[in-house]
């Protein structure tokens, strides 16, 4: 018994040493933009879109598992591998586009922070600078381990959504039915919503971040199985949270007659008369947490892979003096993201965020195809290449993601009013 206990303890310790990158990366997917999309889906279509979460989870797992595997086996970041295989120029343009895309994303994170805090009654002129400073200090003064621990705690705060959802008293049977029974209906609005839900799932930067984080963590090949669980648990967590967000909005905003919501903070406000003050605050708290969390990881990831790809020293473990380019880039992205929200009104932020979405959509095919080609290289991956079956699944998934993401890009230029 004692021996078994000890065995269990050792396994737990190894798991804790491996866990992190997968869970963190997947959770950042539920950022301000994600929460808004889910809120709109629940508010306008009730429980009828919940079924999309299952295939989305599978797709997310398939893609993220491959990057984590590449990180563990090669010990190199994705940007490193792309640079070694496809040369400087390709890498450079990839990095520049990612930088622009992520700048846009960072702006929307800070906008989400402002909108979440306004529900609690804090003006954005206080919330945004405070958030930016917090995020900056965290990374500049942290080591990889301490930063990761804080990020993992941030993942736990997503519990705010399930609680908020329980307070909203959704009809659980309807919700479960909506999750397992695909409900297809015609109408461009419904189709747009599906594209929105799926298209925001896999962003190019996530692949770079996950692989670099796995590398920095130093996961050994023999512990790879645990790393895979890290990815799987993370992806499931993410979509469980998405489920609760959709269900909460379906139970309240949708059930009470239709309401359009402008941003995720709006959704929190709309919950108040229907599900009570607590549910509304929890929803807003979740948004604030998600925004700060994503606002620290996105610039971090961007700085990471840009430095990696261009061969400049990077890493949270390095000091300011050892990796000046890395920290300057990180600081600039945080500062520009925060300043844009403070100085530009919403009308002016829209084109930037649109641009970043378009660039994300254009980049994703490249990143996924590079990824699939790299992971099938024998000299890099050896026995850890994709097998035939997995390759078919992976290609189908990636092509589907590419098509839906491009569809999302196209749809942003031809907005239809979502009405039912």
């Amino acid at each position, binding site marked *: 018994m004692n021996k078994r206990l000890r065995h269990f303890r050792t396994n737990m310790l190894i798991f804790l*040493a491996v866990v992190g990158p997968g869970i963190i990366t997947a959770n950042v997917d539920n950022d301000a933009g994600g929460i808004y999309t889910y809120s709109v889906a629940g508010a306008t279509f009730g429980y009828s879109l919940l079924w999309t979460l299952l295939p989305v989870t599978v797709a997310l797992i398939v893609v993220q598992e491959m990057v984590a595997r590449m990180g563990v086996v*090669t*010990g190199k970041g994705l940007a490193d591998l792309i640079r070694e295989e496809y040369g*400087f120029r390709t890498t*450079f343009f990839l990095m520049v586009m990612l930088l622009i895309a992520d700048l846009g994303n960072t702006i929307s994170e800070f906008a989400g922070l402002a909108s979440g805090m306004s529900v609690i009654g804090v003006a954005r002129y206080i919330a945004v600078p405070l958030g930016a400073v917090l995020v900056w200090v965290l990374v500049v003064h942290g080591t990889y381990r301490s930063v990761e621990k804080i990020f993992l705690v941030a993942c736990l705060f997503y519990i705010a959504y399930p609680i908020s959802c329980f307070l909203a008293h959704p009809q659980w049977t309807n919700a479960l039915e909506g999750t397992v029974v695909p409900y297809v209906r015609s109408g461009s609005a419904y189709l747009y919503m599906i594209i929105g839900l799926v298209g925001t799932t896999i962003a190019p930067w996530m692949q770079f971040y996950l692989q670099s984080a796995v590398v920095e963590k130093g996961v*050994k090949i023999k512990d790879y199985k645990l790393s895979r669980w890290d990815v799987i648990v993370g992806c499931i967590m993410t979509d469980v949270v998405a489920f609760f967000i959709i269900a909460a909005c379906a139970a309240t905003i949708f059930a009470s007659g239709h309401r359009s919501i402008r941003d995720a903070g709006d959704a929190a406000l709309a919950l108040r008369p229907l599900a009570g003050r607590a549910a509304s605050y929890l929803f807003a708290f979740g948004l604030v947490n998600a925004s700060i969390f994503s606002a620290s990881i996105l610039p971090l990831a961007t700085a990471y892979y840009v430095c990696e790809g261009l*061969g400049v020293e990077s890493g949270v473990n390095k000091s300011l003096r050892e990796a000046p380019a890395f920290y300057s880039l990180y600081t600039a992205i945080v500062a520009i993201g925060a300043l844009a929200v403070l100085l530009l009104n919403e009308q002016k932020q829209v084109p930037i965020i649109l641009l970043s979405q378009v660039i994300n959509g254009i980049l994703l095919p490249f990143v996924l195809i590079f990824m699939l080609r790299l992971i099938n290289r024998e000299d890099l991956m050896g026995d850890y290449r994709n097998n035939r079956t997995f390759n078919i699944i992976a290609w189908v998934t990636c092509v589907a993601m590419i098509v839906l993401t491009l569809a999302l890009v196209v749809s942003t230029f031809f907005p239809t009013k979502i009405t039912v």
Partner: protein
Amino acid sequence: MIHFTELEHLPVYDVKGEYLGQLDELCVDPSQNALRIALYLVKSPNKTVLRIPYDQVQSISMLAAQTTVPAASLMVHAPDEGLLRVKKDVVDQQIIDVNHRKVVRVNDVDFDIQPSDGHAELRIMSASVGLAAAVRRLLQGTMAKHRIRALTSLLPSKNIPWEFVNLIEPDSSRRVKLRISYERLSELHPADIADILEELSRDEQKALVEGLDDETAAEVISEIPTELQAALLESLPAEKAADIVEEMPPDEAADVLQEMPPETSAEVLADMEKDEASEVRSLLGFEERTAGALMTTEFVMVGEDARLEGVIAALRNFEGKLEAVHMIYLVDAGATLTGVVPLAQILLADSSTPLKDLSMDPLISVEAHTNEKRVVDLFHKYNLVALPVVDDKSHLIGVVTADDVLEVVVNHD
């Protein structure tokens, strides 16, 4: 000087001026000459790759290259592991800049054109890593070469002379063929080599450790975090791992073996010399986070009646690290610890003084199961540099030194 970015895709003509194709790759044959380009690979319009030996290149410049022989006498190239390929093995890859002690990624490679009777030779001069080289890569092929030159000459460039470039090749047989040695690298301070090591991927780390001699490898490995030590040693053949562990101080050897899976550490222990293995084994028995787990078994011990000459004899026979000789430990006939004398004190005193009289007062020691926190407190309170560890019968079994304590303190922060 000419850059690889200016040579890639260069049109190549044969002796009669007939177009052969584009220059695709430059190869060095390290078994012949470490700097000279031995082979020029040319991609012909029908996609075959022709090889031109260095002595058949009549001229080469930014504009074109010409051979000394007709097209018909050129052979088709077959891959050869023993050749160093500039484009494939150097450009865009990570190398170690031995001079600046860091790992960098190569943007471009610089050559020197040297006329040699009847033909022109290219010699590798340096690897470029700076901004100028990056811009050259970006602009390559988009505008005239002299324009790119003029433009990039305004930018800061950073070249690593080839003699300071250490290539990293994970495949050990290819490393031998390419004559990659880590001789220059092993002259650096082990802590610097350790920093370089931590920058690399696991296969590359393995390659580097395999390329170092056992003693240097042990010193380098002692400088990296324990988990990484274990992962690295596990990836090596047990025999090589044993050779390296033998060279490590016994306390660190025990720490790293404890971190490995039991089967692997047993294998390593079995491959070690008997004496070293039993020393390490005795340390493995101690509970984590105790004085026993921290201590080393390398220390200088003499009988309590000894005098200066006895100490000198003991020091001459001592095989451990020099840091371990600051304190001399006195034991009685039954191996019970009776005193501790600083080496400096012995040197300052009269050579006939019995060591017993120089002993520090009070005699501070701990038992092996003492918690490491208590050990740290004692070091702090009494300003110790070393602390003897005894078993339940007061027999001296080891010594905790200040560097071990520093590690505990730093890691707990």
